[in-house]
């Protein structure tokens, strides 16, 4: 059993927590795991990508192009930026929400949601678009998008991990007082997938 997962987003969205949770769930399942994360300067609102490789007999932590089984993305344009990591037949779970960088406000670059959605649909056989913004608010905090999307991911068929183990791994990483909100966010993500 082997799984290559890319998580992309913008610094501050909590992609590292998601990556650590998947790694924790893999260990709970008795699998080997390697992750690679972006830490440092880019965390200040820059693009961030985590690679998670689960299985046995792993090589390096970086996933080759066109090899990831899953691309999980917390921001729409970042999904496009990382789509070359997805293997043919791989699954995309992405937020529909745009985080418009300052460069766009200043007229230095462009952001076009519709083109990005179109491009993702053309390029990926399986693409799921989630309204992470409203799902997070429903969970009780705008910052819960990472946990909502983990809930959604946990329902994917054929994962080497069990949904419950992912949730438990998340709960181990967050402060006790946020347990309920995170459990709720995870559940909302799970439910959102039932529509697809």
């Amino acid at each position: 059993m082997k799984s290559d997962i890319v998580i992309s987003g913008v610094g501050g969205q909590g992609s590292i927590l998601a990556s650590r949770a998947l790694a924790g769930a893999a260990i709970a399942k008795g699998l080997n795991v390697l992750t690679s994360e972006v830490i440092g300067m880019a965390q200040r609102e820059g693009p961030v990508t985590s690679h998670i490789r689960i299985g046995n007999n792993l090589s390096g932590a970086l996933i080759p192009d066109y090899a990831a089984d899953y691309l999980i993305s917390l921001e729409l344009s970042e999904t496009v930026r990382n789509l070359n990591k997805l293997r043919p037949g791989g699954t995309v779970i992405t937020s529909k929400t745009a985080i418009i960088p300052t460069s766009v406000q200043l007229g230095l670059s462009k952001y076009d949601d519709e083109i990005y959605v179109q491009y993702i649909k053309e390029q990926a056989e399986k693409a799921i678009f989630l309204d992470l913004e409203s799902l997070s608010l429903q969970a009780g905090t705008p910052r819960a998008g990472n946990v909502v999307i983990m809930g959604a991911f946990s329902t994917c068929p054929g994962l080497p991990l069990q949904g419950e183990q992912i949730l438990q791994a998340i709960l181990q990483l967050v402060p006790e007082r946020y347990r309920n909100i995170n459990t709720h966010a995870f559940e909302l993500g799970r439910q959102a997938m039932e529509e697809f």
Partner: protein
Amino acid sequence: MVIKLLMGNEAIAHGAVEAGVKVAAAYPGTPSSEILETLAAMAGEHGFYTEWSVNEKAALETAIGASFTGARSLAAMKQVGLNVAADPLMSLAYIGIKGGLVLVVADDPGPHSSQTEQDTRKFAQFAKLPVLDPANPAEAREMAKYAFELSEQLLLPVILRPTTRTCHACQDIDLPEDIRKNPPPAGFEKDPNWVIFPSLSARKHIWLNKQQERTGNILGLSPFNRLEIDGDTRVGIVACGLSYNYVREALQLTGLRASVLKVGTPYPLPAAPVMELFKHVDRILVIEEQEPVVEDQLISLAWQQGLTAPISGKHDRLVAREGEFDVDKVKAIIEKFYGLQPESGQETPLPELPLRPPVLCAGCPHRASFYIFKEAARGTEAVFTGDIGCYTLGAIPPLNALDTCLCMGAGVTMAAGLHRVEPGRKQVAFLGDSTFFHSGVTGLINAVYNRADITVVILDNRTTAMTGHQPHPGIGNTGTDGQGTTVDIAGLARACGVDFVREVDPYDLTAGIKAAGEAMNHNGPAVVIMKRECTALVEKDRPYTIDRKDCIDCGACVENLGCPAIGRQDGLPAINANCTGCGVCAQICPVQAIRRKL
């Protein structure tokens, strides 16, 4: 045994604790910072000392002092930090150590968060010190443990050089449940061999050179170098450190065959496994990131031994000297080496994507400080020199506030240099509080002594923010085992001989602009301390909002500040959920349309 998910830096810290480290010191720098953070968290339980030193030289010298008592010691830093610590390191190689001393230096090919892509393996070769190069976090832990033993065996400091992709990779690692305790160190024993006179250096240089061969022999037996012979091919690949992973996966993906020598000890390159590889192959490809450290030694060894198998790598431009590698890059190199045309995928062109450079956080006090000084300098040709820290981001639009950035502390001294040639122009140096203690204060003393008429702006956000909020002498709290002594920046500047010292809250634009103007007009060096805690460390204040009725869409808030909390909604500027309530935008709105939410 217990299985834990450890980041490479945490794994290195665990290895050091298992080896019985007694003293560990570091200055933060990405990608190395979590090494000392992890050690500090383990120090109480395991009974050893850790500190955040003021700079890398101080960290290494602290470790050296501890080693001279017989204690195992460690210093950690990023690759450019070793430039600062080069002085003690070069001399230490001659003097040698007593308790095992491991210097962890994290390299950053890419670079992701550094000024250079310098190769610490090359530095090790220059200093004539052994260097270990891990392929993953699990090996980094093993190497950290072994490095102490090797150090004591050779009486030399040993360098452990992970790169970003090991430092910030996580892996499941088996850890022992109990860690045995080392006997207490013997203590410092007086001996003329600790005093580096030229006569001693002359003798010790001969010793140091002899140690190179001895080290090579010891490392020839090391399990960190592993030869995997494929009897069906006469092609060999030598892969150093992290590159081994990429080679392994690229061979799997392409189905190509090669005997592979994984090198974990790049300097001095042990002859034994290399000579064994030559027996099985007719040509060799060397794959390593950064400089041709292994390749050059391999070529030299082959020439000495009269071996004629062709060696490919960086010298014939098959392998890049710049940038970070990955499986795809290494796969293309290997295919080219085999004379194959790398597959060219038919890619659909990507739609235009937004530029997303890292920016100062919403509410960052540095943004206000830059705005203040730009306003105060309006209409002048002032030069703003920058330094290393979050505030380097002040150089990007729309602030465009910094004109230079070179290395830690250089802002102050470069401002003075600029002043020598253009004394009629204003020079303003910006640097952070932690950077001021690291190497800015020497520049300030230099400016006072040599009467440089410059303004030094210390952006005092009460932390070392960029690297993850480590403490520094201005805070007092050591972040390790408790309360240190606070060094007051204003008092220090006055003690250096600066007449003009002001402390200002950057959120108060009026007071800030006044102080900035006075400082720039002051005759002689002036210091302005912009004091306000890093926004990531404090609770958000009540947010602001823009009244759409009153907004005239002049764009001042968007274009002058570049705050990620200010976007546009239905055509007009609007404040989003990132707002921290700093109130800076409200102060620059010409029609007072920005008000605190009720």
